[in-house]
Structure formats: structure tokens, C-alpha cells
């Protein structure tokens, strides 16, 4: 069974600086998808970025980028130029590409990101 591990329960960063949130996962599959979700105080789950395992190129979305290391099964999220609005819980998630799983998401425990003004 697949597992997702976020080893940092909490991280803090100074506004405008860069922070990296770590995520590792375990799977025997070769094709899958990885996601970072943000959960602000409003409690919604908002997709931040996603990565296809078959793509070597790291995904980027504006100030958000990932460092995807397939062999190491690592999927870290880098937030550049941190803003106060980035303060939230961040969840790493894994989704199999096989239909047997019905594409259910498997989640990490989350990292609370604090932005210091």
C-alpha cells in the first residue's frame, strides 16, 4: 500500500523569503500523480500544484515549484517570496494512475506553515 510522509509538523518563514516543505512517499508503482494541497483557515482544500511521475520536469505554478526526485521518492514544495496569505496547512497527496484504485487520494499528515511579517 502507498504511504505519504510529511516529517515537518510545522514550519515558519519570514515574509518574502523562501521555504521548502518536504514530502516523501512509498509506492511500488511507476506511474502516479503527486499533489500539494493548501488548507487555509477557511478550511477549504485548494490544489496548489501537481506533478505527473512520468515527467522529469518539475512542475511550477507562479511562486510555487516542486523538487520531484522519483528515485528517492521525494516531492518537496518550494514557496518563493512568501506572502502572509500563504499561511496555511499544506498537504502532500498521492494518487495512483491505475483504475483499480479509483484514483483515491492518499494524504500526508500535513505541515503547518507560519509566515512571520
Amino acid at each position, binding site marked *: 500500500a502507498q504511504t505519504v510522509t510529511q516529517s515537518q509538523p510545522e514550519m515558519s518563514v519570514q515574509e518574502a523569503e523562501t521555504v521548502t516543505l518536504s514530502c516523501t512517499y512509498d509506492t511500488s508503482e511507476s506511474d502516479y500523480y503527486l499533489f500539494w494541497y493548501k488548507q487555509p483557515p477557511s478550511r477549504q482544500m485548494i*490544489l496548489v500544484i501537481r506533478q505527473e511521475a512520468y515527467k522529469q520536469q518539475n512542475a511550477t505554478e507562479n511562486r510555487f515549484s516542486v523538487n520531484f526526485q522519483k528515485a528517492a521518492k521525494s516531492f518537496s514544495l518550494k514557496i518563493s517570496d512568501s506572502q502572509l496569505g500563504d499561511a496555511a496547512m499544506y498537504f502532500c497527496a498521492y*494518487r495512483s494512475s491505475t483504475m483499480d484504485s*479509483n484514483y*483515491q487520494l492518499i494524504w500526508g499528515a500535513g505541515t503547518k506553515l507560519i509566515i512571520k511579517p
Partner: protein
Amino acid sequence: EPEVTQTPSHQVTQMGQEVILRCVPISNHLYFYWYRQILGQKVEFLVSFYNNEISEKSEIFDDQFSVERPDGSNFTLKIRSTKLEDSAMYFCASSEISIADEKLFFGSGTQLSVL
């Protein structure tokens, strides 16, 4: 951007009572999901729903749980006889299609407290 709406935002109930958590998915979406997050624990998949039937469910989704799409717009999760351990944040999600990298739209969640 379209939103998934969940009501109520907070539900308090007595152990043994039935609760219904309501969700309005995005109108053109066809796939619906329920997840839950017990305080301090990981988000867990409960069930997925397509074409008016359950397509997959987890071990958590036992006989006390049921889902329904009663009127073509609402998607409900019913817990027949609540237990203390059912206290959690319940998230509804929907997607237009069901492929692995399809974007899931989540609601804001319903915090269920069982006393």
C-alpha cells in the same frame, strides 16, 4: 471559480443519533467524493460516487455510512448511529472526469462533533 458548497459548517450531535452532511458539487461535475480528517490525523478517503452508485469505498465506510444524490444537485453523507470516533472534519469533493490527475474541487468541510 466555481465552488463546492457544504452545509452545515459545524454539526454537533449526540452519540447514537443520525446525521446528514450535505454537499452541493459543481454543477457539471460527475464524480463525487467524501473524505474525513480526524483532528491531528491524516485526511482519509471514505467513498467515491459516480452515476448514482458507489464506485469505491474504504474500510472506514461501513454499514453505518451511506451516500445519496437525492435530487441531481445535492450529494449527502449519512451516518446512521454516530459514535464518538466519528468526530472529524468531513470534506466533500467533486471532479468533472475521473482520471488520476484531474483536479478535485473540495468544499470547506463540515466539522462533526459527537458528544
